[in-house]
């Protein structure tokens, strides 16, 4: 949990820094106003466009036969949640399973994973009507091998 918080704080710090840089370059040539008002404008701008999601994970991985969110996934999803609250948009969560086990059971497992991500986002305050969950089971692997490295890439939820 401490690690998660640290990661989050670090990420927000980077985001804040990036936002600051962007607006600074915009403001310099045109704005003769006092410094205090300038800060207020910056904040409004960030709220309008939502946080910068560049580099934030959109694929979240799971352990075999599990639908428990890992700490990396929770950290990234908190950023997504903030972005979705700031500027709501419809998203699609696509759940997937590795090839082991039966196909229809894996459909259910993929859905369970997509639901775990949905529930986490809703707990963070995202409106549930923005979220559609779909399971592809084992039907759409990203890695085709029959080994743990392929399987671990295929047990995933993709946020789209």
């Amino acid at each position: 949990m401490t690690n998660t918080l640290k990661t989050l704080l670090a990420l927000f710090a980077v985001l804040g820094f990036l936002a600051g840089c962007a607006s600074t370059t915009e403001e310099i040539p045109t704005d003769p106003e006092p410094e205090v008002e300038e800060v207020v404008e910056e904040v409004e701008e960030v709220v309008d466009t939502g946080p910068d999601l560049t580099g934030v994970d959109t694929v979240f991985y799971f352990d075999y036969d599990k639908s428990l969110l890992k700490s990396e996934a929770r950290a990234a999803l908190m950023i997504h949640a903030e972005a979705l609250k700031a500027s709501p948009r419809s998203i699609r969560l696509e759940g997937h399973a590795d090839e082991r086990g039966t196909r229809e059971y894996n459909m259910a497992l993929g859905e369970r994973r997509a639901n775990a991500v949905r529930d986490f986002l809703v707990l963070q305050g995202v409106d549930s009507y923005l979220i559609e969950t779909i399971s592809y089971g084992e039907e759409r692997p990203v890695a085709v091998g029959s080994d743990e490295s392929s399987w671990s890439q295929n047990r995933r939820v993709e946020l789209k």
Partner: protein
Amino acid sequence: MIKRLLLVLITACVCQLTHAELVIEITKGLDRPTPIAVVPFGGLNATVQENISDIVSADLLRSGLFRPIEKRDMLGTPTKEADIYFRDWRILGAEFILIGDLQEGTSSYVLEYQLFDVLQQRKIFGKTITGSSRHLRDMAHKVSDDVYLAITGIRGAFSTKILYVEDVLRPGPNRYRLVKADADGAREQILFASSEPIMSPAWANDLKRVAYVSFETSRPAIFIHNLETGERTQLTNFKGLNGAPAWSPDDKRMAMVLSKDGNPEIYVMDIATRKLTRVTHTYSSVIDTEPNWTADGKSLIFASDRGGNPQIYQVALASGRVERLTFEGGYNARPRLSPDGKSLVMVHRENGVFHIAWQDIASGDMRILTETWLDESPSIAPNGAMLLYATQHNKKGVLAAVSMDAGVKFRLPSKQGNVREPAWSPFAD
């Protein structure tokens, strides 16, 4: 019987494949299969497009119960009873001899064939069937069915069909295919192709329709596909899972899994009225899936992880009473009942590896039938003698078959993509 041969299904909008036929490789046979001489048929047999006696020979070989005598060892090729020298065939070790003669009739081919018991020097049966040039393979499988029944006492399933899903692993509008073929893999027809996944094909018992799951709407949905007209009907469009369709024995109802109420539960839909009845009632996050009807249409067996890991259960539709059927191992799923209802087959995990297992329902005794890797989707032949399943071979998805006593095994390798999810058709009547 002849009428049945002529009643070959006419499928609309069907493309014939030439390069993707499945080829049978026998991987294990009985220790002592019955030697039979399938003598090359006379008349037009060698000149028509399909060599009927070769097809019969391959059918009988594939059953694992027969060892056809090599043609090169035969001392003669009789086509009439009077030309059979039983002593010659007895020396070759043949217990039975099949002879036949194909002639051109007024509007179709006429095939006469006779089966003899070599040791008793006795005719077992003699028959005549007719069919057009399109029906030569059907005629061959009919001969195989007759021979199989006469010798084993079990109805042959050589005339039945299979469905399977193929993934050619190249993105595009024809990536995923639903394929229909003869039980020996010949005469493949693509029923439906899509850029999106296709799953869980299921035969209607009338053989006129199939159901499957297609993702073509960007969500999983159950479709009914009429094989005679080519017409497709979307049966379900619920939020969440729409899967595992299974026709009731009278084809009036469809069992399925839906997660519209939160978690995957078993439902039964009346196909004509689309009225839904929820069958299972578990608490949130439990998975109930993969329903399969009992022959009386009064119960479903299905997989559920309500006990902590996937096991097979049976639910009575009238009372809703649920009974657990499997207790061995930590993963049992995708159950299918044998035609006599006395046993079931399933996907069973042992030491982390997935195999097909058979279980006697009354005693609970379980037997693992396969030793291959990532085995799934068992589908039992309508005569209960063998089952088809999907497995991996040389890193490709292939179909394989195993007899219910595990004594006979063969593989049907695909020449192009990955094949999976075989569904063996019921008998045609």
